[in-house]
């Protein structure tokens, strides 16, 4: 009966793998192949260009801009959302009056569509009558056009991402905090150890696996969350908020240069793969609390 078991196993896996291969693995492979060809245009079929698309990338100022922007975007959103979510979790882990209201406030952005909340944020940032400008004007500060200025647009978009993500990550930290035994806290209290020492020496090491899990998600999201760019800036002004995934969309579906879009996608997959491999090794070396 054991020899027959593997046939059953494969039959049970078959339906899931048909979809998995067809829409994840196969497209990943054909993306790589397509990136070595030119885009077919009209009667002209695609021809092999080797690394032609990749060469084009290096000379493409918008691609370079998108890479720089994505790096800045990641460098801001990843640490900020992790730090804030941990602070939120520590806050609502305690019990005080209104704690469930506070927790709800933090978590709400998670269930709201990013595309919809982008409209609301756009109003906050609107010059002249927007909420932030109204506050600025009350304090006698000049009006500012946050999403319309190349030097502030990317930060405005990043702020929305942090707002959207932090409450979601908070949940994971909250779950991790609840697994810390109360006896450790009591022991620390007897030892007279300070709040900060307890956090650094006990809490932080114990929630390391969660921190790693959250970090990987934050990295993935830094390259995946672009919905609000469609509403707020469309990659502008002057490519100031052009992010890699948004550029893939523009290249592939606005200019229909699918081969170049494929090459751009390969770059994105490569970045995500490095993250995955990094997680694998880090998880082995640093995290031993499971």
């Amino acid at each position, binding site marked *: 009966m*054991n020899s027959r*078991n593997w046939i059953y*196993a494969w039959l*049970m896996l078959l*339906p*899931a*793998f048909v*979809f998995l291969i067809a*829409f*994840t*693995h*196969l*497209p*990943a492979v*054909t993306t790589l192949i397509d990136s070595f060809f030119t885009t077919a245009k009209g009667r002209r079929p695609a021809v092999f260009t080797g690394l032609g698309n990749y060469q084009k990338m290096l000379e493409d100022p918008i691609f370079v801009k998108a890479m720089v922007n994505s790096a800045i975007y990641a460098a801001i959103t990843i640490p900020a959302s992790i730090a804030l979510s941990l*602070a*939120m979790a520590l*806050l609502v882990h305690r019990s005080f009056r209104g704690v469930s209201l*506070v927790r709800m*406030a933090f*978590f709400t952005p998670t*269930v*709201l*569509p*990013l*595309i*919809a*909340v982008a*409209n*609301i944020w756009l*109003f*906050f940032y609107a010059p002249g009558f927007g909420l932030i400008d*109204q506050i600025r004007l009350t304090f006698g500060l000049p009006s500012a056009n946050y999403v319309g200025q190349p030097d502030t647009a990317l930060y405005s978009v990043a702020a929305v991402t942090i*707002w959207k993500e932090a409450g*979601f990550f908070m*949940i*994971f930290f909250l*779950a*991790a905090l609840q697994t810390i035994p109360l006896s450790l806290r009591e022991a*620390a*209290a007897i030892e007279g150890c*300070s*709040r900060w020492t*307890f956090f650094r020496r006990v809490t932080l090491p114990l929630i390391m696996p969660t921190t790693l*899990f959250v970090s990987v998600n934050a990295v*993935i999201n830094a390259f*995946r969350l672009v*919905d609000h760019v*469609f*509403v707020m800036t469309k990659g502008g002004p002057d490519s100031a908020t052009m992010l890699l995934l948004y550029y893939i969309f523009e290249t*592939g*579906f606005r200019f229909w240069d*699918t081969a170049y*879009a*494929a090459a751009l*996608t390969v770059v994105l997959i490569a970045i*995500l*793969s490095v*993250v*995955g491999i990094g997680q694998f090794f880090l998880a082995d070396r640093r995290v031993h609390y499971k």
Partner: protein
Amino acid sequence: MIGETTFDRILIRGGGALLALIWIAPLAYAVWAAFHPPAFEARFELMAPLTLDNFASAWSQAPFARYFLNTIVLVTMILSAQLVLCTLAAFAFARLEFPGKTFLFTLILMQLLVMPDILLVENYKTMRALGLVDTIIAIGLPYFASGFAIFLLRQTFMTIPKELDEAARVEGCSLLGLLWRVYVPLGKPAMLAFGLVSVSHHWNNFLWPLIITNSVETRPLTVGLSIFATTDSGTEWAVINAATLMTSAPLLLGFLLFQRQFVQSFMRAGIK
């Protein structure tokens, strides 16, 4: 408990309250703008008159009823397919031995990093080859086999004691019978958790639906809203805010009613 002064407490409470206020502000503002006449969209007066006109005009200016229907069909279809496909696969990984197990499981894990969300160009080509461009099924197909669901359910199934298997086998239960009678009932909390995560993810998903749909009959709410909010600059903020609230309302209400389950589900989905 551990050395906490009154000053500490005030600092933490104050900071927490401020943070919570910033986090709820966008939603609070949307509610304000949606329920007041456009004249008050940037003027905050306590006695401003309340109105439902913004909702009425949003509803009449775009086919939101159809968009709602499309989104509901979409999330139902995706979740049903995911539960069936992923339960079968998760059971095989959790309880059966077969050649290629590690390799196949690695393929599953790879999807956690390289999601269909970024393989836009190739998936579009596939849909065109299948003649499925601009159909609701095409929005869902890439998400039917969820690596996340398989992983989550496998972890859950592995915690179920093996003695139950043997008992069921002695009773003459087939493999599928075992899955249906023992594993599915015991895995229900995990399935509910995944269900909430999946529904809220696909209710809010935007980029792939934007690419693959181009008509009212197939567009989900998110795409419909984005078109509504950008088509003509004449649309008033108040009306856009009403539409924004409308599209988020079902999830938001669900969340407020089942807050505890929601939070616990997301937690459960995260701990592995």
